[in-house]
C-alpha cells in the first residue's frame, strides 16, 4: 500500500472538498477539516504500526518519475526519525483544528480558506519529512512558506503583515542558500556517474573539503534559520506573536522541526566531514541558544513571545543533541522534537485561550486565574512543567538524554546547558505566578473556564505529555536504531565510560 502518497493526498482531498463548500457554511468547513485531519491521523497510526523498527533503511519507499530530463523523482520514504515527526504532525493537526475552532473568524479571508490552507500545509508537512529526493524536499520546503505566510498575514493579530513578511524573507534567504548548495550537488553528481537528486546517491559523492564546507553551510544556515538557532532567531517571536495560536503551534511544533530534521537528514548524511569540522562552532551556537533563549524568555512581557523564546532555548537543546554524536544525545534530540511539539502545543493553545478570553497577551494583564478558571490554569501549569522538563513529564526524558549524551563527549557544553534548567524554572514560574497565582486582578473575574471542545482538544496532548514521561519506550525503541545508524554512518561510537582509569 502506498501509505505515504495516501497520507499526502488525504489532506489535499479534504482541502478540495472544503474549497467546494459554500462560503457561508463555516461549520461544515470546520467539520470537514476536523474529519480530514482525524482520518490522516488514523492513517498515520496505521502506517506506523507496520513500521519495522529494527530496519534502519528507508521504509514505505515510493518513487515516480517527475521531471525525468533532470533526474527528478517524486520519491518518498521514511526512517524512524521521519516517521516520528510525521506522527507528531498528524496528531497535532486535528488538535489544532479542534482547539482553534473559532480562530479563523476575523481574518482577512473566509473561514474555509483558513482550513484549506491548514490542510494544504498538512500535506506539505508530511511531504517534507517523507521526501527522499533533494529537489522534491526543496520544493516542499519552500512551498510550505506560502500557506504559512497567508495564515499569519491573513488571520493573525497585531502587525500580522509585517511579521508574515519577516518570516517569509528570513526563510527565503535560507532557502536560497540551500538552493545554491543543491544545484552544486546536482552539478557534481553529473560529473560522478550521472545527474541525480537522489539522497542516497548524493551522499556518496566525492568532494574536496572546501566544497563540502561551503555546501554544508548553505544547508546549515537554511536549517538554522528554520530551527531557529541563535543568531537567526528574531523572526520567530514576531511570527509567533502575530499568528493565531493554532498557526503558532504548527509553526513552532512542526515547521521549525524541519530545520532540526534537516540537520540530521541532510547536513549529517550529505556532508559528514564538514559536519565534523563545524561541530565545535555549532555546539557553541546551540549552547548560546539555550541560555540566550531562556534569558529572553525571562524578560518577555508578552506571553506568546515568551513561548517563542522558550522554544529557541529548546531548539538549542535539540541542535546540541544532534551534533553531540552520541546515541543518547541523538535519540534524545529526536524524542525532544516529538515532545517539544506537544508541550509547546499545549502551552500555545492554552495561552491562546487565555488571550482570547482576556483580550490581551500581556502577561501582567492576567492575575489569579487559578481560582477563576482552574482547568485552564492547570492545563497551562502542566504544559509549563513539561516545558521546564519536570521529571515524569515527557520533555524530561528527552532533555536528560541530550544532556547525558552531550556530557560524555562535550562536558563543558553540557554543564553550561544544564544551567538552562534553572533558567527554565524561572521563565515558566514567572508567568505562572503573574498570570495564575496572586489575587484575581480586575478584568479577570469573569473569565470562563474551558468548554468541552477545548477540554477535548487539550486532553490528548496532556495525556501524551504524561504518558511519554513515564513510558517513552515505545517511541524510544523506534528511534534508537535510526539514531544509532546516523551515528555509525558518521563514524562515531559512543564514548566508553572512563572506568578503570585508576
Amino acid at each position: 500500500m502506498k501509505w505515504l502518497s495516501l497520507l499526502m493526498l488525504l489532506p489535499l482531498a479534504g482541502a478540495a472538498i472544503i474549497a467546494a463548500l459554500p462560503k457561508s457554511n463555516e461549520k461544515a468547513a470546520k467539520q470537514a477539516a476536523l474529519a480530514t485531519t482525524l482520518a490522516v491521523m488514523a492513517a498515520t497510526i496505521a502506517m506506523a504500526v507496520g513500521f519495522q523498527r529494527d530496519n534502519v533503511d528507508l521504509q514505505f519507499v515510493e518513487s515516480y518519475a517527475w521531471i525525468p530530463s533532470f533526474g527528478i523523482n517524486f520519491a518518498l520514504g521514511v526512517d524512524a526519525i521521519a516517521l516520528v515527526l510525521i506522527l507528531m504532525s498528524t496528531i497535532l493537526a486535528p488538535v489544532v483544528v479542534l482547539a482553534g475552532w473559532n480562530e479563523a473568524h476575523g481574518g482577512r479571508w473566509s473561514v474555509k480558506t483558513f482550513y484549506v490552507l491548514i490542510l494544504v500545509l498538512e500535506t506539505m508537512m508530511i511531504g517534507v519529512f517523507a521526501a527522499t529526493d533533494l529537489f522534491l524536499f526543496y520544493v516542499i520546503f519552500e512551498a510550505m512558506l506560502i500557506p504559512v505566510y497567508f495564515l499569519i498575514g491573513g488571520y493573525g493579530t497585531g502587525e500580522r503583515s509585517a511579521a508574515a513578511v519577516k518570516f517569509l524573507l528570513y526563510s527565503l534567504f535560507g532557502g536560497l542558500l540551500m538552493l545554491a548548495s543543491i544545484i552544486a550537488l546536482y552539478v557534481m553528481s553529473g560529473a560522478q556517474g550521472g545527474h541525480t537528486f537522489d539522497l542516497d546517491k548524493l551522499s556518496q559523492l566525492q568532494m574536496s573539503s572546501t566544497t563540502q564546507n561551503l555546501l554544508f553551510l548553505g544547508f546549515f544556515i537554511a536549517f538554522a534559520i528554520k530551527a531557529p538557532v541563535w543568531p537567526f532567531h528574531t523572526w520567530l517571536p514576531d511570527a509567533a506573536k502575530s499568528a493565531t495560536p493554532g498557526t503558532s503551534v504548527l509553526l513552532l511544533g512542526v515547521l521549525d522541526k524541519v530545520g532540526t530534521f534537516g540537520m540530521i537528514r541532510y547536513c549529517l548524511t550529505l556532508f559528514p566531514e564538514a559536519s565534523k569540522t563545524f561541530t565545535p562552532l555549532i555546539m557553541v551556537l546551540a549552547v548560546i541558544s539555550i541560555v540566550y533563549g531562556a534569558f529572553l524568555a525571562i524578560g518577555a512581557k508578552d506571553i506568546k513571545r515568551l513561548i517563542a523564546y522558550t522554544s529557541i532555548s529548546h531548539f538549542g537543546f535539540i541542535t546540541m543533541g544532534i551534533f553531540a554524536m552520541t546515541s543518547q544525545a541523538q535519540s534524545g534530540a529526536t524524542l525532544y522534537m516529538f515532545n517539544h511539539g506537544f508541550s509547546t502545543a499545549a502551552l500555545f493553545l492554552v495561552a491562546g485561550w487565555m488571550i482570547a478570553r482576556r483580550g490581551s497577551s500581556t502577561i501582567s494583564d492576567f492575575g489569579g486565574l487559578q481560582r477563576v478558571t482552574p482547568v485552564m490554569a492547570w492545563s497551562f501549569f502542566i504544559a509549563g512543567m513539561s516545558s521546564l522538563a519536570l521529571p515524569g513529564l515527557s520533555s524530561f526524558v528527552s532533555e536528560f538524554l541530550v544532556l547525558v549524551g552531550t556530557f560524555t563527549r562535550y562536558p563543558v557544553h553540557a554543564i553550561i546547558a544544564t544551567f538552562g534548567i534553572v533558567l527554565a524554572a524561572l521563565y515558566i514560574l514567572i508567568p505562572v505566578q503573574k498570570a495564575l497565582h496572586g489575587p484575581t486582578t480586575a478584568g479577570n473575574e469573569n473569565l470562563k473556564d474551558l468548554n468541552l471542545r477545548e477540554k477535548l482538544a487539550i486532553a490528548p496532548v496532556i495525556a501524551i505529555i504524561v504518558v511519554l514521561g513515564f513510558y517513552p519506550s515505545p517511541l524510544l525503541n523506534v528511534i534508537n536504531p535510526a539514531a544509532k545508524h546516523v551515528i555509525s554512518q558518521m563514524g562515531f561510537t559512543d564514548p566508553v565510560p572512563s572506568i578503570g582509569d585508576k
Partner: protein
Amino acid sequence: MTTSTSLVYLIALPLAGAAILLLAGRRADKWGHLLGTAMSASSFGVGLYQLMLMLDRPTEQRPVGKKLFEWINVGEFKVDAGLLLDQLSICFVLLITGVGTLIHIYSISYMSHDKDRRRFFAYLNLFIAAMLLLVLGDSYLNLYVGWEGVGLASYLLIGFWNQKPAYATASKKAFVMNRIGDMGLSFAIMIAFATMGTVSFAGVQEHAHHASEAALTGMGIMLLVAAAGKSAQFPLQAWLGDAMAGPTPVSALIHAATMVTAGVYLITRSNFVFDAAPTAQLLVVIVGAITLMFGALIGTAKDDIKKALAASTMSQIGYMILAAGLGPVGYAFAIMHLLTHGFFKAGMFLGAGSVMHGMNDEVNMRKYGALRKFMPITFVTFGLGYLAILGVPPFAGFYSKDMIIETAFNAGGAKGIILGVTTLIGAAITAFYMTRVMILTFTGTKRWDDDAHPHESPWLMWLPMAVLAIGSVSSGYLLSSGDALENWLHPLFDHHEEHEAHLFEPIVVSAMALTMVAIGVAIAFFKYARQEVSSVAPENVSIFTKIARQDLMQDRFNEAVFMRPGQALTTTLVAADDVVIDGAVRGVGQVAMGSGSALRGLQNGYVRSYAAVILVGAIALIGAIWVVVQ
C-alpha cells in the same frame, strides 16, 4: 534480589489518591480529605507489612526490589523504572507514611474551614507518592523523578494560599533554589554515567572502587549541591524560611520531617561515593557545620514561631549532614537523628499550628504568652518535643544528638576538635532559642490582642500531636537500645573497622553536652522569663541581632550577587536582541529598501526607456558571447 510486587502499592495508592482528587474536582469536596487520609494510611499499612516481611528474612536477603518496566534504554544508558526497598529505605517509608498519615489526620481538622481542602489533600498525597518514589527508586534517575516531584509538591503546597503575592513568590523561590540543587543532581548523574556507564545505585556501588577519585569527588560535590538545595543547607538555605508561607501541616511534614531530610538520604545512599572521595566528604562536613551554626543563629532572633522552628530545622539537618559526612561511623547516627527529629520537629510544628489555630493564625511569638493554661495538651506535647530537641535524657534527641557530637569529636585531630566544639556550641544555642520559644509562647504574661480567644484544638488535631510526642519520648531509646538501628543499617555501609582511640568517653561527651544545654537554657530563662517581654520587637538591639533577624543577610546576598545582575543581564539581552540582532536584520531590510528607492528612478514608466535598457542588455549579452567565443 527478591522481588516484591506490593512495593508498587506503596507509591500507587497515594498517587491514585492525588489523581482522583485532582481530576474529580469539586465533586470530591465532601469526601476528598477522607480518601486522601485513607490512601496515606494504607500506604503506611503496606510499609508495615513490608517491614514484617523484611524482619522475617535473613540479613543478606532483606533488600527487595521490583522492576516495573524499562524506562529509558538508549545505547549504554539503560534505566529501568525499578523500586528498591532495603533497610535504609524502609526507615524512610515508615517515617514518611507514618508521620504523613498523622499529618493528614491533623489537617482534616486544621484545614476544615478552607474551601480548597480537597486540593490540599491531593497535594499532600502527591507529595507522599513523590517522596516514596524518591526513597524507593533503585537508581539516581528514579530518585531524580521523586526528587523533583517533591519539589513540585512543595511548590504547590507552599503556594497553597498563593492569592497572597508574597506566598506565591515564596513558592517560586523555593522551586528555583531547589532547581539549582537539582542541577547538581543532574551533574552527578551525568558524571556517573560518563565514568561508570551506569546510574543505578547497585551499578555505581559496584564500579565506585575502580573509578578515578577526581570523578568521584566531582560526583560527590554535585550530590552535596543537590542535598544542599533540597535540605536547605548552606549556601542554598534561603528558601526554607520563606517556605513557612505554606499551611502549618505542610511545614511539619515537608519542611521539617521528610522532604528536607532527602539530602541526608541522598548522601547516606551514596555512601560508596563519599567513602572513596575524602575531599567531597570533608566538604559535606563543612557544609553541615556551617549550616548548623547558621540555622541556630537565625533561630535566636526570629519572632515568628514557624520561622524559628524552620531555622531550627535547618540547624538540625546540619547536624545530620555533618554526621553523614563523617563516614561509615556517622551514617547510622545521621539516620537516627533524622528519625527522631522527624518525630519531635513534626510534633512541635503541629503544636505551633495548634497555637496558631487558637490564636487567629497569629505567628508572632511576642503576641503569645501564658498559653499553657489555655492549651494544656499542646503545651505538653510541644514540651516533650522541646525536651527531645534539647537532648535531655531519656528523650529521643539525647540519644541521637549525643552520638553525633561524640562521633564528631572522634573524627580525629584538629578536625575532630573543631567539629566537636561546633556541635556543642550548636547544642547550647539550640537550647537557648528553643527555650525562648517555649517561654515566649507558653509562659509569662499574656500579650495577645483582645480579639484572640485561645482555646485547645479539637481531638483530631491533638491526637497526632500526642502520637508524635510519644515518638519524641521513646524513639531515641528504641532505636539505640542495643544499637538497633546501627545494626539494622550495618549491611548497607562499607565498614572498615578502625578503632580509633576515643577522644572522650561517651559519658564525658554527654556531660559536656548537657552542660552546654543547661547554659543555653539558663541564658534564655534569664533573658526572657525574668524580664518583661515586649509585644513588639525592640529596635535598639545589637548589630548581630539585626543581622540575625535578616537571616544573616542571606537574601540580601542572593539579591545582590545573583538576582540583580541576572535581572540586569536579562534587560540587557532583551534590549540587545532588539537592537543588535534584530537591528542587523532590519538594517539589511533598510539597505534593500534604500537601494530599491534609488533604483526606482530607472523605472520612469516610459516604454521607450525600457526598450533602451533591453537594447543595452542585449548588447551585454552579445558582448558576453563575443568574449566567450573567442
